[in-house]
Structures are given as structure tokens and as C-alpha cells.
């Protein structure tokens, strides 16, 4: 039975409850990424972050990532939760949990999922500093994503 889930929330994320939601009897390892708000980025201090999403499309893209990960890795279940709104330093912004019979595939899938999420899921972060604020722009000049300049 598939126990995958993918959600967007404005509430505080409970990491343990996410990790436990995806554990079936045939699994022996769950790898969980806890992504949280960094205080210093290249020496510049962030006071807090604001996350915004194109929610309907973000959920569709998360679903695609889960399906693609299942095709590539020997894993059983995946849970992804991303938080939106204002987040303070140290608060969890994203959790990705992957349950597998063996740890190696779970680590690989979790790393692949966060890389792809940062490239394809339409969510943006704004860093707020003592002296201003800035929307962060992703790296994705990826050929698989169409761009305006093409």
C-alpha cells in the first residue's frame, strides 16, 4: 500500500510525525531531510524568511517528483512537506522523508528529491535583512525547463 504524501502548510512542521507516517512493515530505514532557516548566507545575516508558492502547481510538481523517484530508486514511501509564510531562524521549511528496505536507496532518493524540488517546485523564498530584503532566484537554467530567453 502506498503511503506517500505531499503537502504545503503554513503551520510549524513536526519532523517526527512525518517520518513515522510513511513506515510500512517491509522497511528498515527512513532518511529524513530537515531543511531549516539559515541565519548567515555567505556572511550576510538573515532576520527571517518569507516563503511563497504557486500552490496548485507546486503540489502537482511534488507529485511528479514522487512518481519519478519511485521509478529510479528501491524505495517504498515518500513524504514531502513544505512550509509557507514567515519563518524564523532555525524553523523547519521543508521535510522530505524516504522509507526503504535498506538505507542506501533512501539516502540517494532523499538527495535527488531535494535537488529536484529546489529546481522544479514553484516555491520562492525572500530573505529579510536588517537593511532590506530580497527575493532569492534559483539556479535553474536547466534545459528541461523552458525559459523566457529561449
Amino acid at each position, binding site marked *: 500500500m502506498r503511503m506517500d504524501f505531499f503537502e504545503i502548510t503554513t503551520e510549524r512542521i513536526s519532523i517526527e510525525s512525518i517520518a513515522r507516517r510513511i513506515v510500512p512493515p517491509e522497511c528498515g530505514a527512513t532518511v529524513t531531510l530537515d531543511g531549516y532557516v539559515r541565519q548567515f548566507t555567505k556572511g550576510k545575516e538573515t532576520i527571517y524568511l518569507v516563503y511563497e508558492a504557486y500552490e496548485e502547481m507546486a503540489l502537482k510538481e511534488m507529485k511528479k517528483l514522487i512518481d519519478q523517484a519511485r521509478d529510479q530508486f528501491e524505495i517504498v514511501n515518500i513524504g514531502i512537506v513544505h512550509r509557507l509564510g514567515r519563518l524564523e531562524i532555525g524553523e523547519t521549511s521543508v521535510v522530505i522523508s524516504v522509507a526503504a528496505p535498506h538505507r542506501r536507496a533512501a539516502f540517494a532518493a532523499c538527495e535527488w528529491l531535494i535537488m529536484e524540488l529546489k529546481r522544479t517546485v514553484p516555491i520562492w*523564498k525572500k530573505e529579510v535583512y536588517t537593511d532590506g530584503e530580497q527575493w532569492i532566484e534559483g539556479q535553474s537554467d536547466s534545459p528541461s525547463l523552458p525559459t523566457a530567453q529561449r
Partner: protein
Amino acid sequence: MSETIRVKVLFFGAVADEVGRRVDELEVRTGAPSKSIFDRLLSDYPSLSTHKLLFSVNQNYATGKETLKTGDELAIFTAVSGG
């Protein structure tokens, strides 16, 4: 048959700040490709071209070739930065 159709355009993050709104309805000639909307926005807001932009049509990344129909939901936004 009408000569024009209306589509919805959503703006997010830095793009919403630059265009000063989060949603708009634009009129476009029947049968036009999605690229025509994106090109129009870039010409109306030249500052947008300083960003790495992505586009979608009906919540899927766009190729620019989609034939638009009434009620389509387009979006324009910068390269994503979640996580």
C-alpha cells in the same frame, strides 16, 4: 466565433513586485500561442528580462507553443528557490 479570448495570468514573488499585482486578465487573439502573452509582458515590463524567468500554462511548465483557450491559467515567475 469571437476574435479574442481572455486568459488569467498569475504573478509570483519578485515578478509580482515588479508588475505591482498578483493576478490579471489579458485578452489575446483566438489561436495565439502562450508565448504571445509572455512576450507582451516582457515588452510591457522590460525590467523583467533581468530575471531568470519561468512560465506555466495550466500549472505545467510551458513550451511557449500551447494554443491558448478561454479560461487558461498562465503564470510567470522567477527560477524557483524553495527548500
